[in-house]
């Protein structure tokens, strides 16, 4: 069960020395959602994708690829 898109969330999180709990606090989603995102098996909604891009300081295209 893979998503249509792949993402670099885990890499970008590691570059900033953040834990999954840090992402939970900043994005306002559950840890299960973060895990599903990082395994590439869940495609976020557009609002969540924009929040991720804003948090990581990257354009959406730099985080997600088809």
């Amino acid at each position, binding site marked *: *069960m893979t998503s249509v898109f792949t993402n670099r969330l885990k890499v970008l999180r590691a570059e900033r020395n953040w834990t999954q709990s840090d992402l939970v606090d900043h994005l*306002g*989603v*559950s840890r*299960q*959602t973060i*895990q*599903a995102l990082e*395994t590439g*098996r*869940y495609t*976020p*909604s557009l609002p*969540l994708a924009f929040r991720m891009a804003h948090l990581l300081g990257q354009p959406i295209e730099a985080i997600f690829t088809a």
Partner: protein
Amino acid sequence: MKIETTTNKTMDIVTVGLCALTVVCASSTAAAKMPFWPHQLGNAPSVGVVVLAAGLAVSLILHTYFWWRDLDEAAQEAHKWAWWWGGNIGLFVGAAGFVGATLFGVDLLPAAIPHTDAALIAAGFIAAFATQAVGYTLAWCGWWMARQ
């Protein structure tokens, strides 16, 4: 996001409080009969029963609303997917099983239950609801397991 979550939790606590208040009001009005009850509808129920049913229905709806609002998008997606696929497949399996068992002459009611049409209808409803709930639960677990 955190402020909204706190507000939702407060409203959810209020909802649970309303539910408790309903139970108290229902208990205190249990003895009184419903006024202005049409004779065509049979014996009037007690005010307490009506208060309890209405209050619990409102509290349950409110609680469900605030619970749903507090879920994140993936959790909502999991419930929606499980409700559709798990609920429908479970319902079909349960309905097919119940009808098939009835057609083959299997006695689906316990011996202690009077074998009336109403009892059979109730058994069918319970079978459909139970298999729907099982299907929903399995689908919900499967959705999360496939994404961990």
